[in-house]
């Protein structure tokens, strides 16, 4: 019976993933345009405050326990939204980097490689951070620090701006022959 349940679950997961895969690949929008329209800004200072342990201790001391738990849940939920937005931005930037890698300009290609690597790191980092936040949400008494490297995320955004500005450089003014 257990084996049948495992087989049924495997089939169900595979079919759901295939459905998502075919749907996602059908919506092949230009990632650069998507980044400009859907790339959402994240207030990094606010996120720092949300995951700061000193801030948590301050709240623990300042408000009644019931209110603290309620506040803590709201903070973590908000933190999760920030992390998901950062992960979504990193995903979009990976697609931007994939397109930028097709450029003929060597410096753009190497910048795209760097952007890809940074996006990948941010994406992995966001997965770990989201996992930690969920753990805190389930076990509030555990003392877990959220390992989200915001400096890396900032560097990622700077790299993206650099690549996009390179792509959008207008053609040089050339006096056309003839």
């Amino acid at each position: 019976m257990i084996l049948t349940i495992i087989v049924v679950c495997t089939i169900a997961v595979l079919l759901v993933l295939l459905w998502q895969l075919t749907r996602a690949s059908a919506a092949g929008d230009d990632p650069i345009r998507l980044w400009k329209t859907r790339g959402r800004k994240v207030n990094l200072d606010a996120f720092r405050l949300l995951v700061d342990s000193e801030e948590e201790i301050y709240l623990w001391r300042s408000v009644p326990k019931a209110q603290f738990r309620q506040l803590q849940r709201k903070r973590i939920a908000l933190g999760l939204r920030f992390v998901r937005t950062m992960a979504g931005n990193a995903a979009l930037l990976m697609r931007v980097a994939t397109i930028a890698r097709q450029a003929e300009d060597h410096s753009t290609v190497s910048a795209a490689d760097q952007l890809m690597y940074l996006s990948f790191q941010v994406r992995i980092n966001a997965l770990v951070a989201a996992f930690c936040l969920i753990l805190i949400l389930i076990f509030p008494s555990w003392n877990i620090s959220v390992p989200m490297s915001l400096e890396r995320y900032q560097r990622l955004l700077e790299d993206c701006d650099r690549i996009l500005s390179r792509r959008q450089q207008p053609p040089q003014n050339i006096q056309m022959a003839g």
Partner: protein
Amino acid sequence: MTLWITPIVVQSVIVIVMVWRRLARVFPVFFAYTALVPAREVLLLFMRNHREPYFRAYWFGEAIVVAISLGVIYEVIWHFVRPYFFLRRLALRLFWIVAVAAVALGLVMFTASDLSHRPESRRDIILLAERSVRFLQACLLIVLILLMSRLALTWQHYAVGIAAGFGAFAASDLALLELQAHLHLISFPTLVLMNSTAYNVAVAIWAIYFVPPWQRKVVVESMPNTDIAHWNQVLSEYLKR
């Protein structure tokens, strides 16, 4: 008859299209799979009157086809991670870890099934072994799709088609083998009929992705500076003559 001949014709067309578009070099294992399956079917057609050699050739061919189909999944993963040096080791290591875990679970599934009271135990052993292999295939496909979607890597058109076709077939075949070889809810002729239908669906998916003309959309955002400068220089030199 229709269920038997349709995939042979469609897969032959896919083989021709792959050679024509030089995709055989991009996906050599999938190409080998697509060429091998119709060839095996034609070979079996000539052996249909000899029961024992037919049985051996069918199951030996099936083992090779299943092994190649696992190779196709490896090929698709390699195709994805090849451009990303930082991902190669992680993805391939993950592939082997999942493969080992799924093989172990597949062996447990195989040994846990009771075969002592079965009249046709040789066929049932093969079906249960095939169920274990399809389980391995499904697990590897799940890891492949999860890895790509979690890391937000860009799926390429043909790779989506290969994964979707194999995924659909692995899922339906696993379900049918579970229903026949383990739960005994359907008969062997029903299994054969439904398995052929599932394979036809998989071949149709591959055909949808491989046969129609497909061009990658390229968004032109600005004029290529260097080309214009080069043309201008050549024209200037030409006019000065």
